[in-house]
């Protein structure tokens, strides 16, 4: 079984704060971390390898320091790692990113299973997984919360949708995006950490994956950021004070339009 897991390094959003007074971003000492959803994708890739044999390759696209998330994946147990990094890829939106990642997967010779986290914690778009599937003309299963079986060239999986759980079957190869309910990611073992330091990461640039210059980076991205701003702070919040029964009554009065039947 050939397995690829695509991961991303993101700023730790828990540390990106806004100053409540000056209303600007306080980004001091923001760390870069493995996108939290991607740990579940790596774990699931490893579990499939443990059941069916084969090899897991982790790919990330980003600047040189994104190597850190590949080392993390190696420490968890992936077999090989590829860093797709090139100045000309910077500024890629989800269209251009999925185009470049698809080209990298093609260079690897494709895969039976491709794993992505549900979304990345910086952009929260959830678009790159399905985007890669579309570029590679692969079937996709999004929001996977359980893989029931992989056999005879087919995968059976459960999807966590807005209003229930769907069980689907797909032919392989297939691309999956996973939710955090799917597993409990392992902690890297000591030997894993030691091995991760020695494994050679492959560095690929735009030429290596044979992408068209007009389809990557800022120029290859259909969208552009026209403006970035910090949202205005909420003002006018009211603290209700008094004995519990009194504040409950006050609040009930404020919320009366919501009472079922009155709405």
């Amino acid at each position, binding site marked *: 079984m050939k397995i690829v897991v695509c991961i991303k390094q993101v*700023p730790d959003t828990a540390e990106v704060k806004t100053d409540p007074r000056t209303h600007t971003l306080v980004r001091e000492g923001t760390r870069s971390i493995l996108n939290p959803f991607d740990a579940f994708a790596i774990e699931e890739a490893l579990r499939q390898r443990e059941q069916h044999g084969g090899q897991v390759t982790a790919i990330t696209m980003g600047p040189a320091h994104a190597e850190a998330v590949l080392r993390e994946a190696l420490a968890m147990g992936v077999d090989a790692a590829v860093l797709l990094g090139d100045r000309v890829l910077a500024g890629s939106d989800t269209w251009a990113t999925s185009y470049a990642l698809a080209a990298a997967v093609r260079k690897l010779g494709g895969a039976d299973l491709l794993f992505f986290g549900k979304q990345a914690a910086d952009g929260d778009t959830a678009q790159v997984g399905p985007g890669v599937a579309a570029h590679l003309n692969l079937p996709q299963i999004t929001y996977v919360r359980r893989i029931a079986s992989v056999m005879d060239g087919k995968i059976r999986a459960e999807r966590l949708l807005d209003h229930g759980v*769907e069980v689907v079957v797909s032919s392989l190869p297939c691309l999956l995006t996973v939710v955090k309910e799917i597993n409990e990611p392992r902690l890297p073992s000591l030997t894993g950490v030691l091995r991760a330091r020695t494994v050679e990461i492959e560095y690929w640039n735009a030429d290596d994956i044979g992408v068209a210059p007009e389809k990557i980076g800022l120029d290859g991205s259909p969208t552009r950021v026209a403006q970035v701003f910090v949202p205005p702070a909420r003002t006018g919040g009211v603290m209700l004070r008094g004995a519990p029964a009194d504040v409950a009554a006050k609040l009930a009065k404020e919320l009366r339009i919501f009472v079922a039947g009155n709405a």
Partner: protein
Amino acid sequence: MATQGITIDHERCTGCGLCVESCLFDAIACAPGRKAALNADRCTLCGACVKVCPVAAITQPEKKVAADAVAQASKWRDVWVVAELENRHVHSVTFELLGEGRKLADALGERLGVVLLGHGVQSLVDMLVAGGADVVHVVDRPELAVVQDEPYAAVLAELIKRYRPSIVLGGATSAGRSILPRVAILVGAGLTADCTALEIDPVTRLLRQTRPAFGGRLFATIECCTARPQMATVRPKVMKPLPTNATRNGDVHLEEIAAGLLASRVTQVSFTPEKAATADITSADVIVAGGRGMQRAANFRMLEDLARVLGGGIGASRAAVDAGWMPYARQIGQTGRTVCPKLYIACGISGQVQHLAGMSEAKIIVAINKDPEAPIFRVAHYGIVGDALVIVPLLTTALKKVATGAA
């Protein structure tokens, strides 16, 4: 050669440091008394620094636009909404998108179309016209009876190529967020996820798509200069539907689709809806959510009582889900679901940034928490410092009194 990176003009730079604050990737440094310096390795060309620089010292080359691309883009016309069905009914988000799409179409002086895919769906056409559509494109095929990403994306891409709409809007639901990214790739369009505001730029006539990023710490306005259509997903409950108008007229096009586009390599084996009627918390008008302060699973019953009076659904913080008090499907926040209800009551939830990212767009937020310093109070419209286990039952009783007019 692709566009080069950000440049900082040190003649103009005053060393004010605003760009350093604006950069989420730690790519700009500015020591006291010095000029700003860029670390190109970390820069993602997001352009945030360019926009905050008060002296225009930071520049980013404009995206190269092919000469005929603008002329080509202007040939795409009309605003489209992708209808979503749930259990053979039109999903509420579709009417919300029609309401918003109507505004955009009127601002452009263009028509509002809606695409309806499914099987045995023609009876729903009138409802979509009454909801604001001028044209309904219907693809009624047995192969589309169940929503599957592959054929749905292929059919939508085919219709987009056929009619060339300028704007395509869809719900940021689990289905919309799976299907529309595929469509965007197939038609070469830009897609902006989870928009909270849409407007037409009066000068350029481009769609300005505003969305939260970094869990709501930051908002970005996105535009598609020449790629068409301009695609966006919008979360349920963000936009307002129009009042239903049964006297509106609309055209109906029954679309022919080549059989090859209807094939799906993924097939549905079963679907198990969540039992409660208000199970889909992303579509609930009212959400009562509990956190660590609820102390144990059994105490969620008092939240259910409160939710019942308000006709709402139950949500939970990550702490409550990790403790096993509520299923993951109910988790609200960055690693769970993002909701935008009319009323959100946070009970015993401190309001970690990851939780706020999932609910801070709610229209009215009520926070009940013992800790007066809890971050949840900073986003709350109404705050009560107190034990949720005491306040919630009192609130339920008080609301029942209000309902019967006794208060």
